């Protein structure tokens, strides 16, 4: 089962740059390995990560096989207003994974 661990501060001051930490379970199979029978193991990676703040994109990462298994990504965003931060990981062969966190801005 895909598990995502997301850390968004529950509260922030307006205008403050807050740090968002994310971790998701994923093999990030490079596509450069072979199994024990010598057959190539197909690439299976998360290639895109997007953060949306109340629907507007505030951060995006294009990822390659050089990103470690179970990708860990942290970034900053300005706390503009209370609402929802939506994080989406898009992968090669399965549906995207989305996780949301609420934030209260004072």
């Amino acid at each position, binding site marked *: *089962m895909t598990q995502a661990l997301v850390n968004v501060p529950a509260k922030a001051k307006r205008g403050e740059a807050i740090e968002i*930490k994310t*971790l*998701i379970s994923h093999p990030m199979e490079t596509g450069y390995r072979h199994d024990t029978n010598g057959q190539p193991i197909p690439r299976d990676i998360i290639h895109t990560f997007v953060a949306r703040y109340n629907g507007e994109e505030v951060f995006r990462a294009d990822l390659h096989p050089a990103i470690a*298994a179970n990708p860990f990504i942290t970034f900053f965003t300005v706390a503009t207003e209370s609402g929802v931060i939506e994080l989406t990981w898009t992968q090669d062969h399965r549906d995207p994974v989305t996780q949301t966190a609420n934030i209260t801005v004072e």
Partner: protein
Amino acid sequence: MTSVVICFLISTSFAAEIPQDERRSGTAFMTRETQAMQEDDRANPGMLAVLDGEALWKDAPPGAKACAGCHGEAATSMKGVAARYPTFDEARGRPIDLEQRINLCRTEHQHAPAFTWETRELNAITAYVANQSRGMPITAGTDERSRPFVEAGRALFNKRQGQLDLSCAQCHDDNWGKRLAGSVIPQAHPTGYPEYRLEWQSTGSLQRRLRSCVFGVRAEPLGYGAPEQVDLELYLMWRARGMPLETPAVRP
């Protein structure tokens, strides 16, 4: 595959146990960066397995109760449990490890198939149970009935084996702190299992680690769940008695 030849200085004198006040967890031998990865639960990839285990804890197999259905809140019912494992099991007349105990609940109490060794499920549920004892001192092997099995494990630890004719003790009692190729030899205290190993790129069990160390000396690894394997786990836990559990540890 890249292979390198290394030279390693080995003392042939008899292995002596590490004095209690000199014992150090594997964490102490890691780089600051890897320590930081373990210390922050929001950055520790082993926490993904714990999270996965929490879901399994609440998940009932068809027609049976979930773990939570019998044991309630793991934070209370499982607190301190992992620090006592492997523990002597009356019915089997010998010690069983935490994975085996959990699988007994699967088969006897949930009438479900046992989780296969080293699967995502077994490592996750074990990591979740063990995480409830984080920070608690290890007590496994300190009771009378466990003693002969601790001794059997000690004998295995001190036995020279494999094409390299090396014992675990030669590295971990006599040469800890030295460098072997790029790695520092730790003292082999099993304080953080199941652990996230960067080498594995996933969470794995103590048995998997022991198998890789046996393979490292070019000997035939013991099978998962083999009695000798559990004796070795028990000896290592007894050897680490009093040290705090760290599950999920991160190791190179």
